[in-house]
């Protein structure tokens, strides 16, 4: 058997570290943090549980911040293609930080709050993201990094019922909205959002009350703790990008098939990095596109797998691939030359030197079930 040996390294811990260990989590390094990849139930059960009931995820490693000031929203818009001036307070929008080539520096969630914005960024990018935002909004906005807060995600069809029990004010929240709420008496902020394709909430809580909140949620009969392993299989089935894999500084939002992040008003007024390149791709198409790839057989095709046309020509690469427990088979996403990006196109995946048949499919692999208005 081949094994990955982990180099010993000093890892940061989240406020729930002791709880994860007490629950028997297998801890692994991720973005410089010790994080639970799975609990004793295992990735398959944790994934399936989230789609049937409610899963609790510790995502405290991610970066949270306020960007405040009279010009904060305008200043923020100079870095992203999203329309935040047109976004009402209490609403959340997914967007990307762009570089001058129209490439994606990170994906993030930004919420309009009184006085500015509440931002949540990826753990692996948070230091660079916050430095970038601070430098580029200096004089017009103040960035306050919320290093004393934890972040939990409660996801699944029963998440709404669970949270309504502990925080009745969440019951009428719709998808992509934000509210300050007391949950079981603990002051939090919550958005109705997530990374699983299921209904659910992302809950920001003071670090010193995080364990208390997590235990209260875990005490609810529908809730089980879920690790990063299942978080990845859930988001992959939902067709959601993982930064650094499916999108990165070399991919534009058009290539990444998230062109909807370039909101209508911003297409007209521009004023974001790489605007000309991105608008050019919107008008003329991009040379490659992120697509779903479904292997015909049972073998998973993982990140880095070469995609070929039926004549043996290289046409793309898998950027995320593995096994989908809810679809009960291998699934993948990756980039292919645009000519091959149509649903149903047969391709070959080169796995261990052999060409395995697959086809291009639309994502998600499972149906999304958000609580829309």
């Amino acid at each position, binding site marked *: 058997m081949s094994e990955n040996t982990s180099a010993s390294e000093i890892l940061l811990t989240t406020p729930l570290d002791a709880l994860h260990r007490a629950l028997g989590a297998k801890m692994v390094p991720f973005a410089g943090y010790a994080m639970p990849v799975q609990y004793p139930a295992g990735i398959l*059960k944790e994934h399936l549980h989230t789609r049937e009931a409610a899963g609790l995820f510790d995502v405290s490693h991610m970066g949270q911040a306020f960007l405040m000031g009279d010009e904060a929203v305008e200043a923020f818009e100079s870095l992203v293609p999203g329309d935040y001036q047109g976004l009402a307070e209490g609403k959340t929008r997914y967007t990307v930080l762009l570089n001058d080539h129209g490439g994606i520096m990170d994906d993030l969630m930004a919420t309009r709050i009184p006085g500015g914005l509440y931002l949540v960024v990826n753990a692996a990018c948070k230091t660079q993201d916050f430095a970038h935002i601070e430098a580029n909004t200096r004089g017009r906005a103040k960035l306050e990094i919320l290093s004393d807060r934890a972040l939990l995600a409660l996801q699944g069809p029963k998440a709404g019922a669970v949270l309504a029990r502990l925080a009745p004010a969440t019951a009428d929240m719709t998808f992509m909205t934000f509210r300050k709420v007391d949950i079981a008496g603990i002051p939090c902020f919550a958005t109705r959002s997530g990374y699983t394709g299921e209904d659910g909430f992302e809950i920001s809580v003071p670090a010193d009350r995080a364990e208390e909140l997590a235990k209260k949620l875990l005490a609810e009969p529908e809730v089980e703790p879920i690790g990063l392993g299942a978080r990845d299989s859930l988001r992959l089935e939902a067709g959601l990008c993982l930064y650094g894999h499916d999108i990165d500084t070399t991919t534009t939002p058009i290539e990444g098939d998230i062109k909807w992040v370039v909101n209508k008003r911003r297409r007209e007024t521009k004023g974001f990095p790489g605007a000309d390149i991105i608008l050019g791709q919107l008008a003329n198409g991009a040379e490659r596109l992120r697509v779903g790839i479904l292997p015909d057989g049972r073998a998973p095709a993982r990140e880095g797998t070469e995609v070929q046309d039926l004549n043996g020509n290289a046409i793309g690469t898998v950027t995320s691939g593995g096994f989908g427990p809810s679809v009960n088979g291998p699934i993948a996403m990756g980039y292919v030359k645009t000519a091959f990006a149509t649903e149903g196109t047969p391709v070959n995946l080169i796995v261990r030197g052999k060409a395995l048949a697959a086809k291009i499919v639309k994502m998600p692999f499972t149906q999304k079930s958000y609580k829309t208005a």
Partner: protein
Amino acid sequence: MTVKYTKDHEWISVNGDIATVGITDYALHQLGDLVFVEVPEAGRTVSQGDETAVVESVKAASEVYTPVSGEVTEGNAGIADDPATVSGDPKGNGWFFKIKFSDSSEFDGLMNDAEYKAYVASLD
């Protein structure tokens, strides 16, 4: 019928001139839930240490190396159809392949039960 072990957590058990190879409980514990298994075809010739089978968990693919050289006589079709069989019975029905070994001296370098237990204890 003694069972011997490799540093890569394969077990090998001998019956006459045919040996059966599988993965240990430790390997299984490291892997977690299994989603895919690929076993070799009969007739394949392998050398000690060659990648001979594949076992995949949700997170990663792992190779199963042959502890000895020889000719594969059978790959376990049962586990290829249902990877969960390995998880249920890694030392029995979860066997990966049988091999007609060509050099019995290769067994000398493998660990016995006590040595493997001590080795595993040293890893954690």
